């Protein structure tokens, strides 16, 4: 079969820290000392100053990537945060150039690293369809032909001539995805687009992706959603520290990925996130996640014990409207429980929910009641969002903890209780017919 994408020895070098001094003055001083005064000692000092004190602040985000993708393949790209997935997609979609190496492609390409790119709040839904469509690479005729279908798919017919700033966030996302779903390119590059919106909408997106995939198009798809990857992809590439560590059939690869990912983590009641790469747009950084049981740090909880989850995070953007979510994952990385400081998910009112946050360090905590989550090993992830559904910082399933029944709360039961939930609920039984009545 004909190759659509051929990647040869692609590498990408990033300089960490500040890229240059950022001010003209410092660079001029360097130039002055270098060219005019030839003062080597001072020059070195200045260079260190402008490049960051540490000299080894270069990082190969990608190193010697070789890959060819055949026409019609749906290729999943998995890997931990910072493994180079997004960098690879950015190079393929020509947002940034590789440091070395070559990529060759056949056919038209569209990249969906975000939905609703270029949306302007003052413009109507219809105008934004044209704007967004054109930015994604459609021409006016293609948009004209698809307009009715886009509007129908989005389900916002009634508001199509209203400025999108009046849209609810759900409507906004639906309209944005509707445009993206009608892209008619031969190659689609998709990055975690499905991580927005509610479950129903995510399912709709996945269905649509499946349909698109059936049409013989080539798709490269980055996701942390292993289920979606397993369902959609023909082949999976696993990236690790900028290199391809494995290529193969999805189910097998995902299993080994999850195992390696999970088993390496040890139980811990506290994690310092300062040096751990985080997802999101970077306006917030999660600093520390801690677990407490009955007010002392803990990671092995009794099933009847309350679990207090405490998160320290630093907001770097003045006025960022933040809310915080926690998710509990099982050992297969499936999410079994999510909560957040939204009014509809909390029994009290968190006064910082969706309020503009000044720059600074914040701390949130929540309490998961005892007798709620069943025994087992779990992972905790923290997700801080802005404007309700946009990612500001994502920790990924990072903190491993255990819920056990060593005190023997389930005395009546001689075996493990199935399921993930074990909340005590109301039960009542009564006899409604007497035995002798049945005989009649």
């Amino acid at each position, binding site marked *: 079969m004909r190759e659509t994408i*051929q990647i040869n020895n692609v590498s990408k070098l990033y300089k960490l820290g500040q890229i240059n001094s*950022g001010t003209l003055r410092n660079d001029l001083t360097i130039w002055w000392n270098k060219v005019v005064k030839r003062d080597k000692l001072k020059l070195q000092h200045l260079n260190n100053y402008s490049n960051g004190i540490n000299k080894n602040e270069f990082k190969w985000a990608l190193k010697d990537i070789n890959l060819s993708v055949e026409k019609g393949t749906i290729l999943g790209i998995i890997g931990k945060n910072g493994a180079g997935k997004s960098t690879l997609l950015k190079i393929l979609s020509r*947002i940034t*150039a590789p440091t070395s190496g*070559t990529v060759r*492609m056949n056919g038209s390409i569209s990249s969906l*690293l975000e939905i609703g*790119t270029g949306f302007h709040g003052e413009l109507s839904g219809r105008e934004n369809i044209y704007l967004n469509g*054109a930015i994604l690479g459609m021409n006016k005729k293609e948009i004209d032909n698809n307009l009715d279908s886009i509007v129908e798919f989005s389900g916002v017919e009634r508001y199509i001539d209203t400025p999108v700033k009046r849209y609810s966030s759900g409507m906004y996302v639906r309209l944005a995805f509707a445009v993206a779903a009608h892209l008619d390119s031969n190659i689609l590059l998709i990055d975690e687009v499905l991580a927005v919106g509610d479950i129903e909408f995510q399912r709709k997106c996945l269905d649509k992706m499946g349909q698109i995939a059936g049409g013989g198009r080539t798709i490269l798809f980055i996701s942390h959603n292993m289920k979606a990857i397993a369902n959609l992809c023909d082949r999976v590439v696993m990236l690790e520290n900028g290199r391809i560590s494995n290529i193969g059939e999805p189910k097998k690869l995902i299993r080994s990925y999850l195992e390696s990912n999970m088993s390496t983590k040890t139980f811990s009641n506290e994690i310092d996130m300062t040096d751990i790469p985080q997802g999101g747009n970077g306006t917030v950084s999660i600093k520390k996640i801690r677990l407490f049981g009955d007010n002392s740090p803990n990671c092995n909880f009794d099933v009847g014990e309350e679990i207090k989850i405490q998160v320290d995070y630093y907001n770097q953007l003045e006025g960022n409207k933040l809310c915080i979510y926690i998710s509990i994952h099982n050992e297969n990385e499936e999410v079994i429980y999510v909560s957040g400081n939204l009014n509809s998910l909390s029994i009290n009112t968190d006064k910082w929910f969706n309020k503009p946050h000044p720059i600074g360090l914040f701390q949130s905590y929540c309490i998961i009641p005892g007798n709620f989550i069943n025994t087992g090993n779990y992972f905790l992830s923290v997700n801080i969002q802005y404007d309700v559904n946009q990612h500001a910082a994502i920790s990924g399933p990072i903190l491993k903890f255990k819920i056990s029944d060593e005190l023997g709360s389930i005395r009546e039961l001689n075996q493990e209780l199935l399921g993930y939930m074990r909340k005590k609920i109301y039960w009542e039984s009564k006899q409604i017919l007497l035995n002798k009545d049945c005989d009649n």
Partner: protein
Amino acid sequence: MTTSKSSNWDLTITSHRGWFELNFGELWQYRDLLWIYFRRNIITEYKQTILGPLWIFIPPIVTTLLFTIVFGKIAQLPTDGLPGPLFYMSGLVIWNYFSSSFSGTSNSLSGNSGLFGKVYFPRIIIPIATLLSGLIRFFIHFILFLCVLIYYSFNSNVELFPNYYLGFFFPILILIMGIQGLGFGLLFSAITTKYRDLRYILGYCMRLLMYASPIIFPLSIVPDKYRLVILINPITSVIEIFRYISLGTGQINYYGLFYSISFTIIIFISGLIIFNKVEKNFIDTA
């Protein structure tokens, strides 16, 4: 990042890129985006303002009145015998197009890093769209100027000797101002991705350049020792020719015109080259 077509592949991406590479075929492919983005600029510019599109008219009228009072009535600077409003507005119409082209495009890269970080299209589309929406504003200002000109033509106290037969120069003048503004803008937007502090200098540069152009004074009153400074300014000859055609004052200096055109071409090409160089990787540091 080369985006050339080789024999077997539609697209090749590599790390290096030629010194001067503007892919016109690709620009043509994205012409609809240019048009839609241009419309977006026009539509969104005056939304959420009380006076709306009236804002197009307010700046030239207010500045002209201000200049007439301050420089004409109070400082009593000569205006080559022309009525103050006509003299100042003729300079301002040309100047405003240049300055809006320059400052409008000078933030093309940094101001759109969010967009450029998510999707590829020829980056040059954004400054070109800005240039085109500035052109619309220029035409409206030009019509405003024509109204003032017609008003004074019927005023018997004023005698004008316009040289309308040289009207074919107009498109060249507009092109010079637009392309020169774009060239400066591209240069600036490329440099400011690295040196953010230069953005604050822009405002001062513009004001300085304005006072070095014959907008509030005619070239004829400039003393000989400063004359060269004013003539080095590539905008001078454009304003002078514009006044010569429409009002009959000033002079038409073909050397000056040739200088302006050469300057425009040089600044545009160097702007384009540096913009191209910076554009391929600036998102890594934005």
